């Protein structure tokens, strides 16, 4: 498989992608400046080379550099894959050209791993044989995480009611400082009686299950959560949620255990 990488905005990023594509077993060329094409000759070294192929199986192009590369003709390309340093398109792209949609490829940390690129190379090889092979996750928008977000909000509702009742935190809680600040707002968000009623509601399992589908669908709900935790890397959510539902009343410590996993997402730098 002959693969061209085009990245004139960030040559280091282009080089990293090129190395990984080469390691996945593809003949790889890199266009990262106006001087011409580079080709991997020995192991990790890459050298200037005057005569690149005129036909490519795959071109992986930084979208912004698509126009810049017109000064150095690429040749005939069978398949094109774009990536973006900013946010990629989020709609469900069903036809070529595809994008790396899972995330922005803005720096070394976000460059796809060898494993991810192997899946991409295998996808394009498969595309030669069949019309609709399954797209690898790298080429799909990120999962919706609807269940994880909802459970996170339900946990926050429980913790709010628990703290507003004057209970103390007996265990380490994510965003502890923010919760302390939040406690100053409780009186503006309800009086004592209201908070008592809310607390009685949140310790009931029904309160948790009702929006998710009701108590008759517990197994279905747990399976849906499990499906999402695999996609999102929030491992253990389904198991913790099952633990919450095992006892007669929903317990604070169990909710915190679940919240600890859910709060990992979106909590950086806060």
């Amino acid at each position, binding site marked *: 498989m002959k693969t061209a990488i085009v990245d004139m905005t960030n040559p280091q990023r282009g080089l990293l992608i090129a190395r990984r594509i080469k390691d996945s077993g593809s003949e790889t060329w890199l266009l990262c400046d106006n001087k011409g094409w580079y080709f991997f000759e020995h192991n990790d070294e890459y050298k200037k080379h005057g005569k690149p192929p005129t036909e490519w199986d795959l071109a992986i192009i930084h979208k912004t550099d698509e126009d810049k590369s017109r000064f150095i003709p690429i040749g005939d390309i069978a398949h094109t894959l774009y990536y973006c*340093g900013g*946010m990629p398109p989020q709609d469900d792209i069903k036809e070529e050209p595809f994008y790396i949609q899972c995330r922005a490829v803005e720096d070394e940390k976000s460059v796809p791993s060898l494993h991810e690129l192997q899946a991409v190379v295998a996808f394009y090889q498969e595309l030669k044989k069949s019309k609709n092979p399954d797209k690898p996750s790298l080429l799909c*928008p990120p999962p919706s995480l609807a269940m994880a977000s909802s459970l996170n*909000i339900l946990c926050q*509702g429980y913790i709010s009611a628990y703290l507003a009742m004057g209970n103390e935190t007996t265990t380490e809680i994510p965003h502890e400082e923010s919760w302390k600040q939040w406690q100053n*707002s409780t009186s503006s*968000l309800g009086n004592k009686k209201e908070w008592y009623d809310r607390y009685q509601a949140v310790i009931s399992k029904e309160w948790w299950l009702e929006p998710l589908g009701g108590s008759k669908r517990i197994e279905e709900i747990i399976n849906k959560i499990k499906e999402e935790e695999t996609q999102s890397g929030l491992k253990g959510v389904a198991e913790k949620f099952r633990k919450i539902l095992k006892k007669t009343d929903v317990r604070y410590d169990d909710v915190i255990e679940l919240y600890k996993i859910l709060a990992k997402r979106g909590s950086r730098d*806060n």
Partner: protein
Amino acid sequence: MITDWEMRRSELSHDCIQNSFIGVIRGVEGNLMAERLADPFNLEAVKEIAKRWALWSNFAEDLFTSAIHELSPQKTFSFWPLSNCPPDTKYWLIPVVVEFWKIRTKIEHKLSEAQQKKDSLNAVVDEIDRFLATTKELNAENVGSYSVLVENLKQAAIEFQMSLARLSVRYIAL
């Protein structure tokens, strides 16, 4: 879920400010350092990005105004499964999680900081505009003050971009 707001923020930060704005300024800086004063790019390209900034500045303003409405966890209650919450739960749970989200993400502080950085960038663009309105070419006499203005423009653009980065959903998600 990546929201439309986040895509617009990313477009402003990455495509407009980083790739276009700062990219052009770096090109001009390179020319000035190499003493290529006669290159028309030095004035024309900056004139062009200053013109475009007027559009981007409005774009940024819309982004800041809509941020809390677009990003707040309140939106989650419009979609499955929380749309199934009974009204008496929504009545108290929505304001509670929105209030906590505001405290935890410091969203209001981050928005006001981004607004300040935008205003600073506006001020430098105005200064550059005034310089360009009275300057037809660069020469030994005016290159010093132009270099300072270009450096200020770059710094203001970088700081504005950094404030936009702090508004990324990575940092303000639920």
